[in-house]
């Protein structure tokens, strides 16, 4: 598939790297040759220095032959303009990153389609949605819904009190309401076998169907605490979006150390309470009642501040913590540090774009990227190796597992005796890099 990415910023380069590993034809356009240099010499893709809104540059990039045009420069208007030009030159599908909630409304969709923009990506909005999901389900670390929620993937940190701790997976198999797909222990992700056991402080990734999600609560020894009072550190764009999206579901208090910003926040988030102060100062936190809040969300521009802020607030009494971590290297560290949920705009935006790819190329595509494992939804082709018998007889690789499948629109779990039929959408967990081996099984 030919994909052109305009803008080699954080989201753009992250996407380019991921997609070039996925064996896609990638061309990256950016005005600044300095930003392209590293990509060009280290990754299997092509770069082109030039303005993404110039007809000549886009023609040179062969935009007429591309299947997907992704505009992710920091400027909303140039993204929309370049998509418009790309579409008029013959791009199949276009995606623009935007910065304005208004554009996402259904009534404006026609307008953008007419302009030649097929999809809009709004990373801050995705992040705000992610925060709300995390606050509604405080007991999970990660929550993914596949195929409209037919299959649900849940990452939970289990503690000593969980009933499954210490048990081997084969003992748990009798319950048949969930599938343990992966275990993250310290910095390593394990694809477990029957004789692996679950230890305290593991993050366990379960695959289950909609009806059985609540069972997980019991076996993990968790209770879903209802979150009401939320304290937000840093009045970033995500914070504003979150406050607006949440409405009156939560009682939000935003702390920021910039007076002008606070004034703006007060204007933009009428329902939230705005505090002018430094959230790194324990007294400010105590004054604002940190011991009483249900959740603490750190959304400043600095990943380090967010991580440390969450840890402090946890010690001071916050039940659930959420940190925005933009440095991808820090994510794995932060997960180990007892931070409830990590938000990363880049990963969210690229996940979203992967899903768009999935729509375009329905045969197979990765849909979610965890820190060092991948979850893919792959359609089994007729006569492929995977359909040749019950799963337990297939001699699958050690670094993959089949978590569930969707047959005729209904989700079901996979057991040893399940036979995969052609046309099934199979949810596969695999360690990073194994995806190509996995895809071969399905073709």
């Amino acid at each position, binding site marked *: 598939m030919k994909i052109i990415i305009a803008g080699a910023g954080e989201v753009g380069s992250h996407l380019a790297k991921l997609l070039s*590993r996925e*064996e896609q*034809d990638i061309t990256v356009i950016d005005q600044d040759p300095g930003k392209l240099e590293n990509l*060009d*010499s*280290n*990754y*299997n893709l*092509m770069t082109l220095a030039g303005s993404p809104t110039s007809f000549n540059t886009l023609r040179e990039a062969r935009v007429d032959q591309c299947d997907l045009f992704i505009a992710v420069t920091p400027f909303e208007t140039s993204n929309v303009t370049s998509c418009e030009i790309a579409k008029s030159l013959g791009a199949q599908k276009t995606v623009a990153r935007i910065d304005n909630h208004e554009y996402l409304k259904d009534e404006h969709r026609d307008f953008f389609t007419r302009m030649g923009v097929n999809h809009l990506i709004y990373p801050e909005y995705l992040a705000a949605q992610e925060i709300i999901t995390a606050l509604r389900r405080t007991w999970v670390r990660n929550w993914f819904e596949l195929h409209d929620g037919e299959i649900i993937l849940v990452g939970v940190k289990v503690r000593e009190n969980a009933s499954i701790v210490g048990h081997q997976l084969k003992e748990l198999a009798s319950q048949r309401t969930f599938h343990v797909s992966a275990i993250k222990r310290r910095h390593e992700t394990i694809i477990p076998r029957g004789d692996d056991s679950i230890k305290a402080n593991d993050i366990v990734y379960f695959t289950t169907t909609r009806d059985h999600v609540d069972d997980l609560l019991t076996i993990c020894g968790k209770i879903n605490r209802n979150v009401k009072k939320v304290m937000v550190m840093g009045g970033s764009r995500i914070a504003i979006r979150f406050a607006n999206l949440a409405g009156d579901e939560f009682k939000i208090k935003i702390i920021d150390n910039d007076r002008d910003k606070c004034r703006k926040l007060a204007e933009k988030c009428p329902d939230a309470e705005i505090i002018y102060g430094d959230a790194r100062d324990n007294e400010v936190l105590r004054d604002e009642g940190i011991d009483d809040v249900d959740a603490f969300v750190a959304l400043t521009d600095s990943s380090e501040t967010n991580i440390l802020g969450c840890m402090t607030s946890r010690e001071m009494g916050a039940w659930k913590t959420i940190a925005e971590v933009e440095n991808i290297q820090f994510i794995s560290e932060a997960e180990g540090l007892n931070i409830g949920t990590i938000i990363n705009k880049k990963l969210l935006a690229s996940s979203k774009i992967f899903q768009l790819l999935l729509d375009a190329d329905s045969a197979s595509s990765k849909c979610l990227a965890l820190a060092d494992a991948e979850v893919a939804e792959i359609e089994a082709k007729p006569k492929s190796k995977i359909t040749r018998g019950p799963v337990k007889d297939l001699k699958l690789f050690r670094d993959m597992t089949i978590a569930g499948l969707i047959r005729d629109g209904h989700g079901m779990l996979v057991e040893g005796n399940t036979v995969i039929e052609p046309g099934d959408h199979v949810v596969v967990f695999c360690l990073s890099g194994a995806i190509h081996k996995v895809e071969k099984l399905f073709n």
Partner: protein
Amino acid sequence: MFRYQLTINFPMLMRVVGWLLVIEAIFMLMPMVTCLIYDESDFKAFLISAGITAGTGLLMTFGIRSHHTDMGKREGFLLTALVWVVFSAFGMIPFLICRTPMSLSDAFFESMSGFTTTGASILQEIGHFSHGILLWRCLMQWIGGMGIILFTLAVVPMLNSSGGMQMFNAEVTGITHEKLRPRISQTAKSLWYMYIILTIALCGLLCFSPMSVFDSICHAFSTISTGGFSTHDDSIAAFHSTYIEIVLTVFMFLGGVNFALLIKVVTGDPKAAWKSDVFKLYIGAIAVMMVMFVISIISRGEMHGIASVTIDPLFQIVSTMTSTGYTVTNFENWGGFVLALVFLMMFFGACAGSTSGGAKLDRLIFLWENTRNEIYRCIHPNSILPVRVNGKVMSFDLVNKVIAFLCIYVMLIMVGGIVLTAFDIPLVDAFFSSFSAISNTGLGAGVTGYGGSYEIIPDAGKWILALLMLIGRLELFTVLILFTPGFWSK
């Protein structure tokens, strides 16, 4: 997803080298078949060589397990340099065990000279060698001309990754590496298709000449790769054919053009050639040289008929500039000025991204623009003057890199020459051989009047020249970096 790699991934390197050896073994089958056609005993030599090469290759590929397949910058440099050495080492086996065996130093020199398309030869009487050996020499040049790595990138899917990207950067000549298509294997394939089409066209044209089919194939291989091995002692002069000279001139010229540019011109952008400063300089340089050659030929009274002031000098100019190294009959008689011009052409060579050697005209443009700017700045110290190539402003880093390249290049010629004089080679010949090796021209040592071929150079000198050829072919940095402690330490 983020793994910091500090040590070099040797198992993976070995596996890739193994793969490449299998490919080399497949190429060896071609001279073997030739031997069988001409009913020569050397087919055994090729059979054994192919067997050894394929055996080692398969053993390395399947015998070694690598835990991870990542290859970074270091692996890219090391692998590229290693592959060229290993290819030459295995490529020399037929020379060692053929009917008329060579010594180890001779065989390695010949083999390295082949793969790097230098075309310097130690063979005295070529007629004694079997057709298989002659074809193998030319085939080596053909493989090396476009690049061993580039060929494997096109055919081995395993390398279609960022590791392959590093190897591409380490092997392909030029200052910046133009990619034609997003995936590296597609770029490699396009370049190779172009190369194969040119070879077939040339071979077809040569078949209409006094050459035999065998000679046509061999010369097609060594001409398009701008290598310069021939099947006759007298090289091209043996055929006494103006037609051959014209055809070869045209194809040597094409071999000296950036292949990416050729592809652009062929695939619907004919104007691209005239937008390229390097191409314009290439044509201009040939024209200027032509005028000077003709003047000096006439002034020395060496004008014998029309050919000696038209096609002969043109052939010589293109042959030198593209680092092919064919010579016309009475080149020695054209005088010292012509020889000096030959030095100049050898130094800069033709366009980057072609099969030619030398420092490349691209760098001459950088040097010229930068020198002009520096001089202008003496009077206007505050002026900001960019170096512009093809209408695009080049960064100062790039200009620095080019200047550094040229300095190292000159230094290496000097060092090579000085070391060679230590082996009792006359001063001028020592420097000329060193120069000829690093620029991959391979003009015979005979040019300076020191014996007919490189055979006369002592063994140690041959190894040094072979190293210089490798350094020159991989454009200095890829090989030189291996000799720095920083490359090996964590």
